[in-house]
């Protein structure tokens, strides 16, 4: 370590992570990150979904304790027990969508937890005048024309972020971290945020932010740090930025070769056709057609709108425009009750909330997809018939359990997911949408699920697979659509499909100015 760095690292505002590790159970999210944040510099963190960017920020801001490693502030080790401990040390994290208390005024939200008081005959009281004056001064310092008496709920997300910046300064925080601030903003708002960042930088603040948008990263950063699978794979300083190199670093190459599926099972018959679908909020003008036996992937960053597209097709979210055809018949606007009966099913991303009822038994969950098919006796469900359906499902989907009456919550994540698959597949669907089908699933069960998906395609089922793991899409899909900020931006098929190509397809996507909403 050079003497120069040692001298620098003692500077006030020099915030260094040294060998930071973080594990959740046996899963290592950060594998020894060392990164220097310096006064007057903007260090940008880039990386794919799940690379560990947000976890790193949460550790830097005291929201999550690291499993190992040291944080050093101006050369001295610090332990941050909580966000407020971080604030006291001058470290402030601006969340992506700030949670200002909606009913308070802007001035009040800026002083929550640290209200200025003054003495009086009846004891200490809040000094409203001082609070408003100081809040106004902090906003003025950043040239933000926001009325301090406005209720916080009337602020746009961009304005809330601006108030957060002023709040950081008010608390004397000079190390400011921004967790993906630009994705909810329009291009004009991004420019304004960047002008604030430049001002803070010129003022000597230590800045860092997370972004997926290559253009803006190249514009604002002094250094770019690339994270991949919990490892810091590259740190580049201006002026040696190189778009191609950053991309290849971000995407990287997995050590193991990703097996591609053998051959497409796609038939000619179109099973699901979506045209010009919009929800007026999160995605717009999405169109694709899916043939029987075909596996179509939806790639994209978390929050790109893929789940919203799936939920709208399935009928649990309303569509604002567009058309959905199932086997040729227009089904736009039908609810999911009707969709399931027409052969469209959806395995949701959030298993505990939407996919299954964890306190209920395996059998009750398996038959819950379509109770109509269970035989009745005097209007009551035949226990024998239910057990028969459930036993067959448990066998076919290789569920490991103690018995059919075991509550689902007692099973491992992988076995729970197999039950959710069984729930839908035993209804005999023609089209299945699988949203993050292997989330929270162990490695062995993951391979089981891949084989099941292959088998469904062989049987002629049309499958739409959403996954944030490029390797998974490569393993499963005949064709992949890349979604960026609610729009289809690329299509990959056949030999073009590789993990690198998939990740590149959405990481390089040009941001449509202002996003869908604007």
């Amino acid at each position, binding site marked *: 370590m050079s003497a120069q760095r040692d001298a620098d690292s003692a500077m006030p505002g020099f915030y260094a992570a040294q060998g930071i590790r973080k594990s*959740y*159970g*046996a*899963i290592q999210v950060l594998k020894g990150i060392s990164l220097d944040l310096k006064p007057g510099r903007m260090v940008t963190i880039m990386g794919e979904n799940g690379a560990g960017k947000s976890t790193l920020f949460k550790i830097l801001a005291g929201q999550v304790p690291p499993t190992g490693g040291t944080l050093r502030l101006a050369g001295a080790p610090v332990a941050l027990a909580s966000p407020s401990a971080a604030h006291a040390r001058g470290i402030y994290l601006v969340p992506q969508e700030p949670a200002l208390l909606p009913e308070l005024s802007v001035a009040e939200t800026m002083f929550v937890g640290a209200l200025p008081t003054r003495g009086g005959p009846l004891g200490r009281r809040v000094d409203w005048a001082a609070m408003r004056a100081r809040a106004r001064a902090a906003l003025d310092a950043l040239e933000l024309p926001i009325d301090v008496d406005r209720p916080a709920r009337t602020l746009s997300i961009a304005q809330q972020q601006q108030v957060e910046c002023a709040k950081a300064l008010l608390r004397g925080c000079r190390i400011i971290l921004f967790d993906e601030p630009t994705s909810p903003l329009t291009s004009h708002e991004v420019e304004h945020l960047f002008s604030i960042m430049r001002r803070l930088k010129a003022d000597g603040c230590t800045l860092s932010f997370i972004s997926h948008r290559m253009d803006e990263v190249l514009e604002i950063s002094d250094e770019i740090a690339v994270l991949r699978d919990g490892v810091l794979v590259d740190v580049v300083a201006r002026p040696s930025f190189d778009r191609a190199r950053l991309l290849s670093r971000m995407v990287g190459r997995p050590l193991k070769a990703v097996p591609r599926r053998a051959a497409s099972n796609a038939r000619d018959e179109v099973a699901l056709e979506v045209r010009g679908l919009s929800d007026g909020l999160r995605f717009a003008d999405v169109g694709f057609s899916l043939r029987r036996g075909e596996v179509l992937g939806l790639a994209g960053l978390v929050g790109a709108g893929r789940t919203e597209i799936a939920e709208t097709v399935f009928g*649990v979210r309303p569509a604002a425009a567009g058309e959905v055809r199932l086997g040729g018949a227009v089904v736009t606007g039908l*609810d*999911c*009750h009707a969709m*399931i*009966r027409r052969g469209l099913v*959806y395995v*949701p991303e959030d298993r505990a*909330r*939407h*996919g*299954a*009822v*964890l*306190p*209920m*038994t395996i*059998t*009750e969950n398996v*038959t*819950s*997809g*379509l*109770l109509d098919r*269970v035989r*009745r006796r005097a*209007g*009551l*469900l035949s*226990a024998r018939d*239910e*057990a028969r359906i*459930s*036993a067959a499902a*448990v*066998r076919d989907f*290789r*569920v*490991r*359990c*103690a*018995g*059919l*009456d075991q*509550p689902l*919550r007692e099973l*491992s*994540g992988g076995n729970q997911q197999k039950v959710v698959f069984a*729930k839908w597949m035993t209804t005999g669907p023609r089209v299945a949408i699988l949203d993050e089908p292997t989330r*929270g699933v*162990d*490695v*062995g*069960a993951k*391979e*089981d699920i891949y084989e099941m998906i292959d088998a469904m395609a062989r049987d002629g089922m049309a499958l739409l697979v959403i996954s944030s793991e490029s390797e998974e899409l490569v393993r499963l899909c005949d064709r992949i659509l890349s979604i960026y900020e609610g729009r289809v931006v690329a299509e990959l098929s056949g030999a073009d499909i590789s993990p690198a190509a998939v990740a590149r397809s959405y990481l390089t996507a040009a941001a449509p100015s202002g996003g869908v909403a604007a």
Partner: protein
Amino acid sequence: MDMRAPAAADAATPRDGRRLPVGGWELALTALLVAVVAGFGAAAPGFYAGPASLLGLTENFLPFGLVALGLSLVILTGGIDLSVGAVASLSAVLAAQLWSRFGVDIWAASALGVAIGALLGLLNAAVILRLGIEPLIATLGTSFLYGSAAVAAAGAAPPSGFPASFTAVGTGTLGSLGPLAGLVPIQLALFAALAVLFSALVARSPFGRVLVMVGYSPDAARYSGIRTGRVLATAYAVSGAMASLAGLVLASYYDAVRPDMGDVLLLTAITMVVLGGISIFGGEGTVAGVVVSVLVLGFLRQGMLIAGFSDMVTTMLTGAILLASIAAKNLFNRRGTGLANQIWATIRRPEPPRANPN
């Protein structure tokens, strides 16, 4: 992991559904019931004067049980119906007025009364679903509306003096069916029949299954294609119908109607449902538990009164038993769905992702 390993469930013996009408809690309540009846039988002279008088005691509390059966469905969905007392009063008063003012046959008027109760329940569901008001507030509000309507409909001199065939429902026995049937009050037969019906409904009917699913997880139910609004509307309608049935049985028992006659039903009925093991968060519990709990609380109250304790002491003991039993239930709840567990689950931070179990 050997994926060819036979699934363990092949070896498992499929039991007859998990939602058996009898579980540990139901057995514990039954033991309590035996203790209560045997205890008062031994210690309180006058509590046991032959089987007919023992069964006859049930006439004093089974209207509460009828309300509890209907309320069970609503609480299983995770909701609450505070309007049951007012629904009982209003529909009984309206049925009585139909009979006395408009000359409608008493049985036809009673049937209309039950239908009115179901309609009032549907109105509750409409307020909850269409106006997006929480069940607690919605049914509190409608209970005032229904209660006032009952006062208005009753007038200065509410009807009384019903035909003997009608008053027999509240106070008569099945005597005409045979000598042994003469021991069984009509109220008890009615309650038993409905208890069996409701138990089968919740345990094994398609409606009961989706009701429980909605109670555990409205989101998962919706994503499974269940039209949750219809399920809720049905539960509130049944609760309303059962409340009005209880109101009519009270009218028959007292041979009169009063606009406030249903007011006593609400709190006791909720106590019966909760002591019966139905979680106020929805999903958890059985009708069998509620049935036993109705008998426990009913006989306890009757026994205390016969033994000469005041109403105040009896009520105090009811509260203490409710708290003690639910505390015991939570303590021994291994499935992690008890009240304490639920509260704990909502305040603790989500667990980090589980490690690979292999």
